């Protein structure tokens, strides 16, 4: 009996179906691979076939930085120099006060500057790539800051390779930061809330005691509790009351200090064990104060 289909066509159809099912199976496997293996595959692709595109964005970010107005940079440098000069005695005063109050020494952190790349592909929301990695001392969990007028919290490092890192910004649903008002009077927890559309994400200051009232415009910073984010990094400004929960807590909307989509140049804060040892050694010998160097220093922990 004659077949309705041409035998070679039928064979090709079966082969096609088998190949299609194999790749469907592989795609399903890729979805459930351990996250470490997924990271390796992603890193491999970014470092090979996709490298030219990542480098293109790196080059554009560099060009944008180089195009910064030199006069504006000079003005910023002058402002910083005046702040440093006017606060030169604070370090010594602070050290004496801490001694009087018997407070522990702050562990210093090191700021590493990095360029931010953001792919505009599907599923890449809330993540950014950095051009610094473990070679520069970046570790998973290090906080990432950015200055837009004032310095603010961008997010946290999630994965690190030798020459690159992946971070998640504050719009990621799992982001949490222990926070306080800038005057240190009221403590709460900051978490993101998805907007109706991408770009409409906002921050919510949660767990505020019911009897505390925050005025619009109040600056909210990290509290240093939990040990992930250094104390005092601005997160956002209070926009208004979101909700009261009975007689025990309330929530406030925050306007983020840093709009993550605009980030091109950031600072990664890392603790430096070698520097901590050096500081301990110096302070043990009566020579207090964190050592200077090419990299900036910042307080860490609270």
């Amino acid at each position, binding site marked *: 009996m004659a077949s309705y289909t041409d035998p070679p066509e039928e064979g090709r159809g079966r082969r096609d179906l*088998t190949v299609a099912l194999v790749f469907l199976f592989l795609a399903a496997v890729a979805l459930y691979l351990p996250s470490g293996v997924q990271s390796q*595959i*992603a890193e491999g692709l970014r470092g090979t076939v996709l490298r030219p595109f990542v480098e*293109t964005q790196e080059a*554009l970010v560099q060009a944008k930085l180089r195009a910064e107005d030199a006069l504006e940079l000079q003005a910023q440098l002058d402002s910083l120099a005046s702040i440093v000069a006017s606060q030169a005695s604070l370090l010594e005063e602070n050290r004496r006060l801490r001694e009087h109050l018997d407070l522990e020494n702050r562990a210093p952190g090191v700021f590493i500057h990095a360029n931010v790349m953001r792919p505009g592909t599907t*599923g890449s929301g809330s993540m950014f790539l950095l051009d610094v990695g473990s070679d520069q001392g970046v570790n998973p969990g290090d906080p990432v800051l950015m200055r837009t007028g004032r310095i603010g919290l961008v997010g946290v490092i999630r994965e690190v390779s030798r020459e690159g890192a992946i971070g998640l910004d504050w719009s990621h649903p799992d982001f949490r930061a222990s926070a306080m008002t800038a005057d240190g009077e009221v403590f709460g927890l900051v978490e993101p809330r998805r907007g109706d559309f991408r770009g409409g994400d906002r921050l919510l200051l949660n767990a505020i005691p019911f009897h505390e009232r925050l005025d619009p415009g109040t600056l909210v910073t990290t509290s240093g509790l939990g040990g992930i984010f250094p104390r005092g990094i601005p997160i956002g400004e209070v926009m208004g009351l979101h909700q009261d929960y009975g007689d025990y807590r309330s929530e406030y909307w925050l306007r983020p200090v840093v709009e993550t989509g605009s980030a091109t140049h950031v600072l990664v804060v890392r603790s430096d064990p070698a520097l901590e040892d050096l500081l301990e050694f110096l302070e043990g010998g009566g020579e207090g104060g964190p050592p200077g160097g090419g990299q900036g220093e910042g307080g860490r922990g609270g």
Partner: protein
Amino acid sequence: MTRKTVLGILVPILVILHFFLHVGLRIERAAPDLLTLALLFAARENGMGPGGALGFFFGLLEDAFSVLAFGASALAMTLVGILGARTRDLFVGDSLRFFFVYFLAGKLLREVIYWVVAGETVREPFLNAVLIDGGIAAFYVASMGALLVLLLGGARALR
């Protein structure tokens, strides 16, 4: 030039252009999803096997920038590649309108599958992510696809 040769040149160009616009120039929704468009062009020309394979590799390339839903694009693109290849057996379209609907449905299907697979932590509400954002993106892809079909000598050239 044969249709296979035209698509053999067009598909890699679309893939490179997609990553150049989205990754190199950091353009998000303002640039169309040329990767899905390339897949839909290639899948209809080839069988289910090559369609699925191409979809898998294209999806993995997108997943390389997705920490939170790795594999979701690979699965979505593989399915779109397979189903796109099947349309050649099911629909013998030769009109520009057919190609427009084919690209529109292909992109929308990709968005739906991605939304289902990506998981709750990543996805936005269905109405916004798929129907509004996805619908606009699908219309954008379909328009670009139809324009390309026209530029390549009309729908008959790619039938």
